[in-house]
């Protein structure tokens, strides 16, 4: 470890971490919005489940390097290219976990809600969504951690946050930069995971009391 290098490159390390964070948050955020839309469609019309989960499944199976290679001719070496790929990889996990969350709501609960005169929108936001939260949060955690890892790969098209730092470290035989990149990535993944867990706990106060 070359501590002097670290000391003199703190601003770069911080910038790379922030880039990495932003790429991740945008990917998971946009991915969540798209997935939530798809899940709502499936909630209303079950027959969309097959096609939507099929498409997101196909995207998921494309190796990340190959996907980037397909996209570069269309959208160039840009943030957009990176984000399209990153978002694409969140869809399968998020759609399945949101739909799984809705499916996990007990039938007697939804039936009681219908029987008491909930409108469908009222039931969705007042009953189904809150009760789907634990599984949705679980999906978000997986998607977030996976995305933090995948952001590294986008270093190959000039993005990549901490991935850039590591890539340059490899090229210039600067093992310190490689280690710093790796350690910061792990720290970022762990902290984002903790943030999502905290959001989850905040969103499901009943689950905390259940065991007590």
């Amino acid at each position, binding site marked *: 470890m070359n501590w002097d290098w670290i000391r003199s490159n703190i601003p770069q390390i911080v910038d790379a971490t922030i880039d990495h964070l932003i790429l991740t948050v945008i990917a998971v955020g946009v991915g969540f919005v798209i997935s939530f839309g798809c899940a709502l469609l499936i909630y209303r019309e079950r027959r969309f489940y097959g096609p939507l989960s099929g498409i997101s499944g196909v995207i998921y199976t494309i190796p990340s390097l190959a996907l980037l290679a397909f996209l570069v001719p269309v959208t160039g070496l840009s943030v957009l290219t990176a984000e399209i790929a990153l978002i694409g990889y969140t869809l399968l996990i998020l759609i399945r976990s949101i739909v799984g969350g809705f499916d996990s709501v*007990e039938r*007697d*609960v939804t039936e*009681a*809600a219908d029987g008491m005169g909930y409108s469908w929108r009222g039931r969705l936001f007042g009953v189904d969504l809150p*009760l789907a939260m634990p599984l949705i949060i679980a999906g978000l955690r997986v998607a977030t951690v996976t995305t933090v890892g995948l952001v590294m790969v986008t270093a190959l098209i000039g993005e990549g946050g901490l991935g850039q730092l590591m890539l340059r470290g490899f090229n210039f035989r600067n093992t310190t930069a490689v280690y710093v990149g790796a350690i910061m990535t792990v720290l970022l993944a762990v902290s984002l995971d903790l943030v999502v867990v905290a959001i989850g706990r905040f969103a499901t106060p009943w689950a905390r*009391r*259940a065991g007590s």
Partner: protein
Amino acid sequence: MPYGSTTMADQPPRASTVEFDRVTKRYDAGAKNTPGAVNDLSLTVPAGRICVLVGPSGCGKTTSLKMVNRLIEPTSGRILIDGEDIAKRDVIDLRRSIGYVIQQTGLFPHQTVGENVATVTRLIGWPKDRQRQRADELLALVGLNPTKYRNRYPSQLSGGERQRVGVARALAVDPPIMLMDEPFGAVDPIVRERLQNEFLRLQEDLAKTILFVTHDIDEAIKMGDLVAVMQAGGKLAQFAAPGEILANPASDFVARFVGADRGLKRLSLRRVGELTLGTAPMAHVGDEAAAARRDALEQEAEHLLVIDDGDRPVGWIAVEDVPGEGTLTEDLPEPMSPLLNRRATLKDALSLLLDADVQAGIVVDRDGRVLGIVTVEMIAEVMREGDHVVPDEPQPPEDDLAALPEAVREAGDAATADDSAAEAEPV
């Protein structure tokens, strides 16, 4: 835990008639006997009465219930509430005006007990503080202390408590109709019996029109003013008062479904208060023993009932054990026999008598004073009487011991069903 006093007592009870008019539900265009199908069901539930739909699984009883709040739409036929076809009503409004209780309670796990109970008042937009006040009232009504329970989550409750919350939630806007789908099915028999008794007592004040689904014929007989026995294929096999169904089953199916012990079941429809009570030789503590013994011998009795200054029973003493001289003391009497109140069913009374040392139950009033005795022979007489059973005779409330919380009087013998209508207490 007893149901508390109702806060709705000052308003007249609201109830509606519910009428099924040739209602049919088919699930499969061709097949007639798919489970849950209903075939040409016509029946009328008068306002303020409990109608129990009972039958084997798949007989269409739950389907029939769910057609009333339009969770299921009939294939043909109409359901009328106070003469109005419910198909013409806004489905959301309709559902909010009908209380709905289901077996697994369907409580919202993510909401507190208070929020659960306030559900319908929230949906129809009552102000927050009125919602909360109403929820507290209802919790008290079903015997749950609001301060203790309103902020708990359903997962923190016992099965019986959940069922109570389910009933409270269904009563939120004082609906004229309640639909109850095996509401006490998910709890153990002792808790179920307690909930049934409490609910019947609550219904005396509420006088709702209730459609109640169960597969348990004993529950149907106990809870129903009217019982609709349904059979596979969704056919109504018989619709009558429980006493009538037990006395005159309309078909072999009904007879089989009701069971071979229907004579015994009929006893659960009759209460101790309807009997002409027997007498037994009695003597007060402190009376002269020899005189008491002479009395008992004159009446050809084998046992003498010793009572205290307040006419409350102390215990039985065998005539041959009464001392020849001195006075009767409290420690002389030995054998026990059950204490009954006038609301106890003959079935419970019989069951307690068969277990007792002296086969004569002592009937007491609410202050514990002896009114008379009941013997196995008297109950057997009622069974032989057969068909002139008059069910559901209203009981004078002043003898309403059974309705008091079961814990008010220490039931000394744990083996007896303490919260059934019969009070068993060794004397």
